């Protein structure tokens, strides 16, 4: 298989404009003859569905939550980047492009990232026009802040709830199209299979989560905007329902899965407090603008602190190690996420961690409060401080927060070309569900930008190019291909319901998460990965022999829903390990212990690994087949990332 990324010819800055002119258009009167399915209603899905509806296509949109407004984009806190240069501090489209390519450790496509930077400015305009209440200065103009890994202030924000406000904006645009009848919304409905007819994506099979009814929906194109797969780790900052099932089942129907081992570990989360823990809560990294990260200088002090013999206040300034400021003076506490996470792990591994478990570092606001006063800090981060206090029962205005890295985002996902189409004709992937723009590491405030770029400004152009070449004919939903896919879904559900074993779904999920975090997390090595692969295979076999799923299909069955998702995680986990094993380099947050610089920084191998690893399904239990898309860098020079 040859992976054609379909990147347009011409100079970088002109590719997208040229492509927009070259793509085929669908006559306005003919758009109503085409049906598009959009799965997922987060930033990418809601914005795409709304924009398709505005253009005149017939859209069916699906989400597993009770309302499209619940999608997990809503939980994004910090902000959204845009190269507006409103602050006159040297920002430009090229600089945003450059920062994003570099931040991704040179493992993303230049053309995609440049387009992302170009449309970033349109996103802000669009959101403001919808009534999104971004933060403003006293003059009434939009405010910006700087965000992890950037030396300019280009991040737009709405207090610590930027994702919520952007999603509610997209949700309102979606609602308008639902009211017009251009979008038909199916909440509490989960996609369980993709349907191909003559090699093209022509629909999906879904389960109604209230009645259990298995139904088919036919269309001319299918867009998966189903988010990431961070929940493979069980504990992550993802919502409880976030899952990989739609993307995974598309993979099993022939779509390639790219860079599955690229997961982002976010440095500032509330540490784990017990085995009952169901999820991890993120503290926006905007906190690193004012908070200083430190641990005690010596293991001995850290031990006394953990035993409760001394308190934070007993540790004098000279006995504290502000390790990010010490090691990376140019960026200090604002180093990119992968660097901050890896260093937190490093100091904890040395025994200098804090908190009962020793798996935490301090994020201290004492200096900022002294400098600006508590009200100013409360105005910036009030809701985050409150959230921290609620969860930990500690007051972060009085004592430093304890933070530790946690799985937050997955850069890997379905392989897509420049048009965001997978290798399956008519199947598109948008937002976190695709692999395209973040390379091996995502910079802060880039996820919201990419989700909305894909949905508002890329797909509405590129999907027309595909549809314009499609006949209007609809495939009836009782076509044999649909019947076969429905039967496949019914069989899987029956199999899950009939095992009647001894272990719960969550029990398996937790064990899988533990394997992934230990062996395929922030630091990996070949031996550990090979071990993890065997462990996952054993666990998967045991799952199908011993899982307990109660009830029947024809009802609201929360255990069956979860069992389907965990069954897929048990397969995806193995592919992540395979991908991590084959990538003999350290890039982004993926630290292969065998590959490091003398200063213990990540050591890339551009000679051999500057490619996208796209995996093809060959059957459960068989090794997936690797296809490579070489990354060509014509505009940026590949350098070892340095934040010193």
């Amino acid at each position, binding site marked *: 298989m040859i992976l054609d990324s379909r990147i347009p010819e011409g100079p970088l800055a002109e590719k997208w404009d040229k492509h927009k002119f070259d793509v085929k258009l669908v006559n306005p009167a003919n758009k109503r003859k085409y049906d598009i399915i959009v799965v997922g209603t987060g930033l990418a899905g809601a914005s795409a569905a709304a924009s398709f509806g505005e253009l005149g296509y017939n859209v069916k949109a699906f989400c597993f939550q*009770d*309302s499209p407004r619940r999608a997990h984009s809503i939980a994004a806190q910090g902000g959204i980047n845009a190269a507006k240069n409103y602050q006159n501090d040297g920002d430009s489209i090229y600089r945003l492009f450059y920062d994003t390519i570099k931040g991704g450790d040179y493992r993303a496509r230049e053309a995609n990232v440049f387009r992302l930077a170009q449309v970033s400015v349109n996103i802000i305009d669009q959101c403001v*026009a919808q009534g999104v209440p971004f933060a403003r200065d006293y*003059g009434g103009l939009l405010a910006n802040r700087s965000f992890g890994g950037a030396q300019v202030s280009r991040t737009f924000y709405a207090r610590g709830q930027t994702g919520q406000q952007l999603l*509610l904006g997209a949700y309102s645009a979606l609602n308008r199209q639902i009211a017009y009848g251009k979008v038909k919304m199916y909440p509490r409905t989960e996609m369980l299979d993709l349907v191909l007819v003559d090699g093209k994506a022509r629909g999906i099979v879904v389960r109604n989560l209230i009645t259990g009814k298995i139904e088919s929906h036919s269309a001319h194109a299918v867009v998966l905007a189903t988010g990431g797969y961070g929940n493979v780790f069980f504990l992550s900052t993802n919502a409880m329902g976030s899952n990989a099932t739609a993307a995974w089942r598309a993979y099993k129907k022939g779509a390639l899965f790219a860079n599955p081992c690229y997961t982002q570990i976010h440095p500032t989360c509330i540490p784990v407090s017990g085995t009952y823990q*169901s999820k991890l809560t993120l503290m926006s990294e905007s906190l690193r603008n004012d908070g200083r990260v430190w641990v005690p200088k010596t293991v001995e002090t850290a031990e006394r602190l953990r035993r409760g013999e001394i308190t934070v206040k007993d540790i004098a300034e000279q006995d504290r190690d502000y390790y990010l400021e010490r090691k990376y003076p140019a960026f200090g506490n604002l180093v990119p996420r992968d660097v901050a996470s890896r260093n937190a792990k490093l100091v904890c591994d040395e025994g200098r961690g804090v908190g009962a478990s020793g798996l935490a570092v301090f994020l201290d606001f004492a200096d900022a409060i002294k400098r600006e006063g508590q009200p100013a800090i409360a105005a910036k981060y009030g809701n985050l401080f409150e959230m921290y206090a609620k969860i930990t029962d500690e007051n972060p205005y009085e004592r430093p927060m304890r933070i530790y890295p946690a799985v937050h985002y997955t850069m890997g996902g379905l392989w897509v070309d420049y048009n965001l189409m997978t290798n399956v004709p008519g199947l598109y992937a948008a937002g976190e569900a695709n692999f395209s723009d973040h390379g091996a590491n995502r910079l802060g405030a880039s996820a919201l930008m990419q989700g909305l770029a894909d949905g508002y400004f890329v797909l509405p152009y590129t999907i027309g190019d595909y549809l314009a070449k499609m006949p209007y004919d609809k495939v009836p939903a009782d076509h044999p291909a649909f019947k076969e896919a429905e039967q496949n879904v019914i069989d899987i559900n029956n199999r899950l319901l009939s095992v009647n074993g001894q272990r719960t779904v969550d029990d398996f999920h937790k064990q899988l998460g533990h394997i992934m975090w230990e062996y395929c997390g922030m630091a990996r090595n070949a031996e550990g990965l090979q071990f993890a692969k065997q462990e996952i295979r054993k666990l998967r076999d045991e799952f199908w022999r011993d899982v307990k799923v109660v009830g029947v299909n024809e009802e609201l069955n929360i255990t069956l829903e979860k069992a389907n998702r965990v069954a897929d995680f048990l397969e995806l986990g193995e592919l992540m390990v395979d991908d991590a094993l084959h990538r003999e380099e350290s890039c982004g947050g993926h630290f292969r212990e065998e590959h490091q610089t003398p200063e213990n920084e990540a050591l890339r191998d551009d000679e051999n690994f500057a490619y996208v690893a796209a995996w093809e399904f060959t059957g459960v239990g068989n090794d997936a087949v690797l296809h490579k898309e070489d990354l060509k860098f014509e505009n940026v020079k590949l350098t070892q990332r340095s934040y010193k």
Partner: protein
Amino acid sequence: MVTYPIKGISPDMSFLEMMDVLNEELLLKGEDPVAFDHDCREGICGMCSLFINGRPHGPERGTTTCQLHMRHFKDGDTITIEPWRAAAFPVHKDLVVDRSAFDRIQQAGGYVSVNTGGVPDANTIPISKSIADKAFDAATCIGCGACVAACKNASAILFVSAKVSQLSMLPQGKTERKTRVENMVAQMDIEGFGSCTNTGACAVECPVGISLENIDMLRSEFIFAKATSENL
């Protein structure tokens, strides 16, 4: 009503983690777990509900159920958990209710009619900081339905007013302010929510602090709109 005894609950557990523990025990016994809605577990998605000891989202003010921790209960307590109670929120199963009425109210007018593209540069619409902040406060509604559950009349007016006042305050929303409030209020009535009798229980129980001022604003917007209706 079923009573389940449960042991080994840590004060640091969230309320929903306590429910997870209960469900794991039930599953191992081969019993049906208790269905409840939840998703983000960080207080922002609005999916969790639960009427706990007679209060929506439980005893802590300004907190969703997922952010409520067991340290607020005493060992040995019997905790009463009910679904949201409102005719407009029919129960699907156990503690899961149907809140799609909220979506239909938003579809009736909770938006600014702009298509993707073709909008002016963001900074050509200056908005004073105080207005932007007020609009933001109204826009933080998470759509959980606690206001309806708290109200003896099951009125949705706080929910509706949050969106109406957000968009009425902002210049972007002014063009449609009259039709918006008329249509959203009409849809609220169609859905079967009760009338507001000014008890203020909704704002007391709102987990994100949506203020009663929004209801004042909705009323003045509504009267103004009715007097000079553009629903022609």
